[in-house]
């Protein structure tokens, strides 16, 4: 019999004792844990997933690290001296032609809008990446959160039991983790650099499940006494972090594509980028608001056409499979898929048949949630040297992404005495590509 006031049942039966112990001290954690698992199980079946269709919105950012060529993707210029050898092809959206290197995407342009008139001005990798990730020029003394952290903060739940910002960047070149800046570490990305599963997600063999639960309950006990009379957001964040551990550990399986039926895995195929897109789909389905899948390295200073032949094939396959999969599961209308990088590439083809860094007239794409599929915005002049119509910068792209997700891009965070709007001062979303 449990004694009054005891958190342990007092039985000599250890199993029972532990159940009693957990029953009292670990109830909250265990409860959430169970709920999430049910949900994950349910979502294995696409039909069920459709039925429990979320209102929650998510982003999958396909980060084309190094800078993909707009000519070989979204803004082909065949026949121009700058156009390169590849032709353009018709798409499922009237009036929109894209590079022949993206034949599968061409059939799915009804989900996708292209912005062809970005002049972001900054042409070095670090500066360009930071600009496009945060939607503004770096400000001395203030570290801005990137789009992932903002999405995690605006779309996620503070006590989320799944990761709310996952960032995959497997290649070593140009690797960037992403940053939550002034939003704080709560919104920092869970970062995958060399493995498909994040560090410290998996329980160590040496520690039994029982020990894991016991010590969490013990920690809870000690923590409650300490936090009772101390009012501090910082201490709360400590509690929150530990309260998310079990949920996150149970979401380990989200990173394991072996959990998918063979038929689904076969569609995504053997290449890493597509497999990471499958992980992204699994995460989004389970409620993760932001996943970045970085595909490096598009920096084709030499052999631009050979490089794009490979990487566009990768992008075309991964992105079109992802869009199909999301659509089939009823997730596409609440999931925004973005392709973006630090800049585009020069119209001029250099002697190594390469294209160099170019930020003055390049493209990105938005698909799914909140997007007017089959549309395009802006124009470059025939050789692609400058924007001819509808010039936008990083801030407008940023505002457009936020609006597509239903987030007020003018909402402000107060940092000290400074109001910081989510998108840079004065930026307007590009209504033409929004649904």
């Amino acid at each position, binding site marked *: 019999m449990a004694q009054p006031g005891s958190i342990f049942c007092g039985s000599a039966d250890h199993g029972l004792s532990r159940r009693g112990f957990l029953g009292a001290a670990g109830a909250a954690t265990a409860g959430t844990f169970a709920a999430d698992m049910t949900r994950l199980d349910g979502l294995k079946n696409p039909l069920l997933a459709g039925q429990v269709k979320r209102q929650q919105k998510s982003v999958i950012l396909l980060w084309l690290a*190094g800078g993909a060529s707009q000519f070989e993707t979204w803004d082909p210029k*065949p*026949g121009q*001296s700058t156009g*390169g*050898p*590849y*032709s353009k092809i018709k798409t499922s959206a009237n009036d929109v032609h894209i590079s022949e290197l993206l034949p599968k995407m061409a059939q799915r342009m009804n989900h996708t809008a292209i912005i062809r008139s970005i002049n972001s001005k900054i042409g070095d990798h670090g500066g360009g990446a930071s600009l496009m990730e945060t939607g503004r020029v770096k400000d001395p003394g203030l570290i801005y959160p990137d789009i992932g952290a903002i999405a995690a903060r605006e779309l996620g739940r503070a006590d989320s039991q799944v990761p709310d910002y996952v960032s995959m960047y*497997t*290649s*070593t*070149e140009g690797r960037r983790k992403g940053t939550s800046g002034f939003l704080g570490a709560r919104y920092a990305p869970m970062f995958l650099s060399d493995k498909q599963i994040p560090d410290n997600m998996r329980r160590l063999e040496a520690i039994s499940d029982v020990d894991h639960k016991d010590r969490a309950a013990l920690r809870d006990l000690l923590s409650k006494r300490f936090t009772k009379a101390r009012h501090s957001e910082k201490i709360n964040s400590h509690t929150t972090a530990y309260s998310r551990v079990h949920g996150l550990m149970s979401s380990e399986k989200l990173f394991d594509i072996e959990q998918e039926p063979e038929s689904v895995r076969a569609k995504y*195929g*053997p*290449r*890493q980028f597509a497999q990471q897109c499958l992980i992204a789909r699994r995460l989004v389905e389970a409620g993760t608001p932001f996943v970045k899948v970085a*595909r*490096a*390295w598009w*920096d*084709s*200073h*030499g*052999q631009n056409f*050979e*490089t794009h*032949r*490979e*990487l566009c*094939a*990768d992008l075309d396959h991964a992105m079109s499979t992802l869009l199909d999969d999301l659509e089939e599961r009823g997730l596409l209308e609440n999931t925004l898929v973005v392709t973006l990088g630090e800049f585009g590439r020069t119209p001029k*083809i*250099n*002697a*190594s*048949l*390469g294209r160099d860094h170019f930020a003055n007239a390049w493209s990105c794409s938005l698909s799914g949630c909140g997007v007017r599929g089959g549309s395009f915005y802006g124009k470059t002049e025939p050789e692609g040297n400058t924007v001819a119509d509808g010039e936008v910068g990083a801030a407008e792209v940023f505002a457009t992404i936020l609006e597509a997700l239903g987030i007020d891009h003018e909402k402000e965070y107060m940092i000290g005495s400074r109001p910081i709007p989510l998108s840079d001062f004065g930026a307007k979303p590009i209504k033409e590509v929004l649904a």
Partner: protein
Amino acid sequence: MTWSDPEKLKRVKDFGISGIAFCVARESGSGKLFFGNSDFKVYEVDALAEKPEPAAFEAEGHQSYVTGIVQNQTQLVSGSYDGNLIWWDSESKKPTRTVKAHERWIRNVTASPDGSIVASVADDMVGKLWDAKSGETMHTLKDHKEETPDHYPSMLYAGAFSPDGKWLATADKVGHIAVWEVASGKKAAELESPGMYTWDPRARRHSIGGIRSVAFSHDSKLLAAGGIGKIGNIDHLGGPSRVEIFDWQKGESLHVIEDNELKGLVEQIEFDPSGNWLLAAGGDHGGFVSFYSVETGKLIKQDKAPMHVHQLAMNDDSTGFFAVGHGKIAHYEFKSDHPPGPAEPPLPEDAA
């Protein structure tokens, strides 16, 4: 009487052209060149004229980069990234036949020594042999894998006939070479030169390289393949220019020549009729023409070309050539008025 002597290599002249010339054919006994360009056009130019003035074939032709061209008397055959082979009358400069030859980009067009057969290779990973007269397909050569070992689309870059006309070699991105019997279209041999392909699994996760050129020696016994060696930063062509020489019938690699002095892709190889040297040309941001000893694989002479060289055409007695490439055409000579003299006494082994 003149003899060829690589030691005497000198650039006689070079002149600018608009765009990038990927391929060249020379009319026998003259300096008249036909070249395929990045503006989708075929051009004619007299490279020996005081002020060479390239003139484009204005008739409707290719729809993409022109990457291969061969000539047989008044007939030209060109190939392009548009997948078409076009037969032209070189005098009227009008197409006489257009054939949808490949599903994907044609990378190279080459002709048999007697001009009767044309071979094309393309990224659909097949080689095709064509009757130069009728334009009919004689054989379709299937051996090269469509995907690299890393599951990306492969590319079939190079093809060359043997001087005796019996064999055709084709070579691809991952360093695989197939030798075909021309008459039957059957595969006669396979060779591998994996050092031509760099897959970067870690830093940049894509690949670069490929065999960009093949050539048989004049006795048809040796086969050389050209490309680029292992590259650290695969987004630049900063790797050693690379030639591998095989005794192809024995399946034996005789030399691997890696040159770190003038780097980049070896876009074309030519053997010396006498069998002493081979000429490799290509480039990175700049260009090179390099002579190597066939016997030892050692460098004889090289020049930093004024542009990345995509192809060259030898003159009739192999004492000079016209190189075409990025924005330029260059005329080189390496002739001597006496046969290359008795070599200086060979250096003792250890001095090398």
